[in-house]
């Protein structure tokens, strides 16, 4: 289980900014997110970076209740 924070297009596609999802690894949490939010979110997730606790992470990394997962779509600042 882990906390999820979604930004920009990912937040809009999911219809929420924060969520808590089950899963023992990053990959299983993201699978649960796609199941919950649907195809539009899945499309955005494909091109996004997923970070854990403010650092780039591997999908096989274990995650727990204290971990914060961020979904960061391609950026458009400036």
């Amino acid at each position, binding site marked *: 289980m882990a906390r999820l924070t979604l*930004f920009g297009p990912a937040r809009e596609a999911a219809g929420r900014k924060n969520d808590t999802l089950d899963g023992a690894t990053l990959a299983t949490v993201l699978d649960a997110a796609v199941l919950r939010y649907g195809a539009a979110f899945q499309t955005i997730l494909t091109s996004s970076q997923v970070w854990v606790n403010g650092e780039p992470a591997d999908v096989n990394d274990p995650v727990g209740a204290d971990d914060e997962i961020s979904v960061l779509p391609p950026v458009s600042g*400036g």
Partner: protein
Amino acid sequence: MKRMSSTPASDWILLTQDQLSVGEAMAWATRANCGAIVTFSGIVRDHSEAQENVTALEYEADEELADRRMREIAGEARARWPEIVTVVLHHRVGRVALSEPSVLVVVASPHRNEAFEAARFCIDTLKRSVPMWKREYWPGGSAWSEETSPLLDVHDP
């Protein structure tokens, strides 16, 4: 990672919902040993690649990471151009009206070459390494900007 609690006196990094002031930033950046100040202001333009009639933009950030990245950009600029004296990086979040600045870069330096080079580096790097998303508004609608780039590291070439 925790947000840095203090800012070196020679960098002014800011994410804000308030209007940006080039005059205030330049006054802050001016030092007696500087002969050159270069500023870049990113302004809300009335059109984009996708829309002919843009009326406003709205910026959303991962604020903690954006703040950290903007500090890293200033630090990297100092590493590349050690002569530069002060660096300002300000970015709006939330709604920004037409012709208002959404982003501001100020670099002051003894000589102009370093000020130009470092200011250019800062805005180019900010655009690809700061987690920020732009929504375009037009009469009757809005959408996320299609002019995106993958989030890169400050140190990526």
